[in-house]
């Protein structure tokens, strides 16, 4: 996608495309801790996509295992995304009364409950 854009708009100087500049801004301005969380989010997303593809392309049998696997990905993604937004220093004003430790404790409790349900479904 990026090379196409540069081909149609050769007059744009570096950074070559909006996507590239976005990526550059992300890698320059994001703290390591947030990148750590982001890689986990990417992992969850990929994992969920592969399971969903398996379900629609091959078989949904055993369905309970699919539900457990897919919902664990989705649920964990939601929990992790909310942890990320709460510990992001840029959102300090929004979550004034939520310290990063409190956010992490919430994440842990939510994850344990989620995992309990996931194992319940696993059958």
């Amino acid at each position, binding site marked *: 996608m990026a090379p196409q854009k540069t081909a149609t708009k050769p007059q744009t100087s570096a950074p070559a495309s909006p996507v590239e500049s976005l990526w550059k801004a992300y890698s320059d301005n994001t703290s390591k801790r947030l990148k750590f969380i982001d890689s986990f989010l990417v992992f969850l997303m990929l994992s969920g996509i592969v399971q969903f*593809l398996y379900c629609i392309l091959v078989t949904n049998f055993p369905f309970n295992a699919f539900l457990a696997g897919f919902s664990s990905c989705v649920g964990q993604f939601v929990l992790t995304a909310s942890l990320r937004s709460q510990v992001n220093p840029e959102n300090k004003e929004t979550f004034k009364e939520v310290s990063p*430790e409190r956010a992490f*404790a919430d994440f842990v409790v939510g994850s344990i409950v989620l995992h309990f349900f996931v194992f319940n479904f696993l059958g």
Partner: protein
Amino acid sequence: MKSPMLVVLLAFVASTYAAALALQSPKFTVSSPNGDQIRSEPISLTKKSSPVRLGPQDVLRVTFQVTENDGGTGVQPHQAFLRFYDNISGEDGLQPVRVTSNGKARFELNMARPPSSFPPTSPDSVLKVSLIIGSFVHKPLAVDLFDLIVPASQPVASHPEEVYYHPQPVIEHTFRPEQKTPPAFISAVFSALVLAPWVVLVGLWSQLSPKVPNLFSLKIIPFTATLGAFELLLVWYWVDLRLGQVLLYGAGLGIVAVFTGKTALVQVGKLRKGSI
């Protein structure tokens, strides 16, 4: 003083009870739909006349008078019925007869519209017609009048739900075919695909290589261990435990986690603010 009156009363009851009922001038008439009389005869109670034959549109009329003690005055009995009995099928039908206060009665049977209580008949059935009269104060009376031959009744229309009242075919449960696992090759490919994100995760994390200098500090490691224990408990639940057990152990572990978590997170907060 009482006794003469009682005697009179008893005598009266006895006299009336003893009185028997009798039929006066019983007679039947068969007429065609256009009013022509086909047959008209007095009914003999001693000698039965030849059977009365009715066409599908004919009308039968029976007239008689109920009297007290042969030749006496007419009386109105409390009940009077004509009974039509088919001794082949054993079916019978009772038709009430209205008797006037002077004992005269007139019964009409129109074969074009037979009453619903009329018994069903076959082509060779002969109905025995008898008259039954009941009274509170007289002896009951039952007399055979004549035999009646009527056209066979229509076959009974089958009820729309009649088919359900027969033995039904045996119910056999059918189940969906057992679901098959996909071929081993496809399973292997998708197993690799599902595991692939782990490679991505490990790759990304090793690039970032976050430092965890305080992970093994004495205040933080118990919390991490508790979280590990939680996950182990859930795996154990998957393998062996029952729901009640996992909830019990989980509750115990939860209490531990509250304390270890509080200690660890307070420590982390202090580290973050740089007060240590």
